[in-house]
């Protein structure tokens, strides 16, 4: 019989004094959203009890964030759900492990190597990315292939703004991305279940689309490690697994690059992975999804074509057979 022992309290879960003292700033900043979320929560009207897993907000506030016309006006999911319900196998199995193991990952210093079919290959450090590029808030719907969804107030920069600096050539038909490979910092990489590092790719026109961003933060603060710090991809019309985390390498390629889940189970996870309610996952329906944080008795939401971004992205796929290129 397997009995799971409660996890010992990690030093990371004890609130450092300076964060504890600033907790009211954060409460004020998110009060309106929290009130809305509590109202629709499991126990309406009740303040959710504090638990050992309650997240400490990342103290690093990103300055001068611009608003964006691409943001949805849907109410964002609570910070605690966005930061404690994660798929990031490199930091542990299950939804809550990544937040518990987040401290293994060090995000400074951090550089991204850019190479492949471009005129000016090179590298860029995270501080440059944060200071040289204007940071925008993008409140996006996020749809996981596991049929759940959130609304996430990302902060970041359009991917194309970065890519253009490296002058991709006409041979650059795709862009490939890689997560950091370091089993010491990402202990999940000791498992042989996956072919590490995590890899993903986009077609060039998808990568250059205005909606595609590199996220550096959420809720106005730098990304918590479990959400893919210090920088991750966000492609809001595709299933979440395309939005690769903790990126260290970007490569322009002529041919379609390998992608982790696609390599693992090509009949279940396509290279395109566009959100599509008309094409079911072989094992479950994609017609609707569960809303994270909505409580025990909330109805599922219908899933929209391209996750509701059809007006912006449908033209990218013309008359491509989306059942075949799922």
């Amino acid at each position, binding site marked *: 019989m397997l009995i799971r022992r409660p996890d010992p309290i990690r030093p990371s879960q004890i609130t450092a004094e300076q964060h504890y003292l600033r907790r009211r700033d954060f409460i004020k900043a998110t009060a309106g959203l929290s009130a809305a979320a509590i109202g629709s929560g499991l126990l309406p009207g009740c303040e*959710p009890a504090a638990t050992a897993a309650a997240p400490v907000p990342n103290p690093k506030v990103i300055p001068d964030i611009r608003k964006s016309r691409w943001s949805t006006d849907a109410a964002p999911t609570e910070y605690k759900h966005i930061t404690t319900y994660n798929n990031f196998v490199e930091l542990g199995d299950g939804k809550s492990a990544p937040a518990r193991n987040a401290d293994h990952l060090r995000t400074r210093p951090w550089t991204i190597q850019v190479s492949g079919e471009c005129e000016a290959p090179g590298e860029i450090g995270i501080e440059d990315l944060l200071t040289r590029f204007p940071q925008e808030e993008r409140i996006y719907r996020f749809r996981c292939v596991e049929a759940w969804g959130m609304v996430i107030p990302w902060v970041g920069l359009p991917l194309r703004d970065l890519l253009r600096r490296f002058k991709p050539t006409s041979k650059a038909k795709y862009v490939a991305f890689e997560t950091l490979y370091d089993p010491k910092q990402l202990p999940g990489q000791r498992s042989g279940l996956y072919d590490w590092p995590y890899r993903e790719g986009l077609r060039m026109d998808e990568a250059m689309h205005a909606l595609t961003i590199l996220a550096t933060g959420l809720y106005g603060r730098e990304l918590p490690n479990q959400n893919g710090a210090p920088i991750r991809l966000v492609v809001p019309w595709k299933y979440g697994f395309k939005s690769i985390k903790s990126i260290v390498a970007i490569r322009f390629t002529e041919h379609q690059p390998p992608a982790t889940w696609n390599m693992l189970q090509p009949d279940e996870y396509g290279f395109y992975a566009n959100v599509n309610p008309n094409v079911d996952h072989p094992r479950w329906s994609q017609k609707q999804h569960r809303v994270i944080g909505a409580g025990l008795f909330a109805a599922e939401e219908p899933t929209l074509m391209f996750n509701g971004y059809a007006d912006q992205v449908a033209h990218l796929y013309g008359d491509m057979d989306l059942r075949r290129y799922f």
Partner: protein
Amino acid sequence: MSTKRPDRIVQIGKPIVFLLCLAPLAWLSWRLLSGEASANPIEVIIHDTGNWALRLLLVTLAMTPLRRLTGRAWLIRFRRMLGLFSFFYASLHLTAYLWLDQRFRWNEIIDDIMQRPYITVGVAAILLMTPLAVTSTRGWIKRLGPRWKTLHRLVYPIAILGILHYWWLVKADWREPALYAGILSLLLLARLPTPSWQRPRDSTARA
């Protein structure tokens, strides 16, 4: 005269085992009420109840080999309670799927059962468990006589279907279903009759 020792063990052991079997439900309820599972409570309920149905089924199946191994016959007297608790968690699991997950949309439930093999085998396992739970009483054991034993051999296909259900639904990490499959294989192997050349001498002497 005091009661016999094995009777005492069972007498004291039964309420303890009963409470232990309820512990996963208590833990699940706590996580739901404290808000710890509030991101996706339906997923937590479905995963937990399914997991404990399988674990308790394996514990149930461990009683016979454990008795053989230790010679403690009283172990078998816990088997019915363990089996019924496995069925209890399986029923919660099915109810959570039908109600919280599918919201009784019967068309889609029937589609699921027909089209998705992991649902097909899961539903089959729970349906097959039902007659075993119903006939677990003393009255039914008497009424069915030798047929009771034959009927209750269904527990082996049920366990296999249950583990298949789990194996087919995981995304990539097959380690836990593989562990369960390994344990079930050992428990089934332990039921094979011991070959005559391996039997202890004294048992041949008695024959």
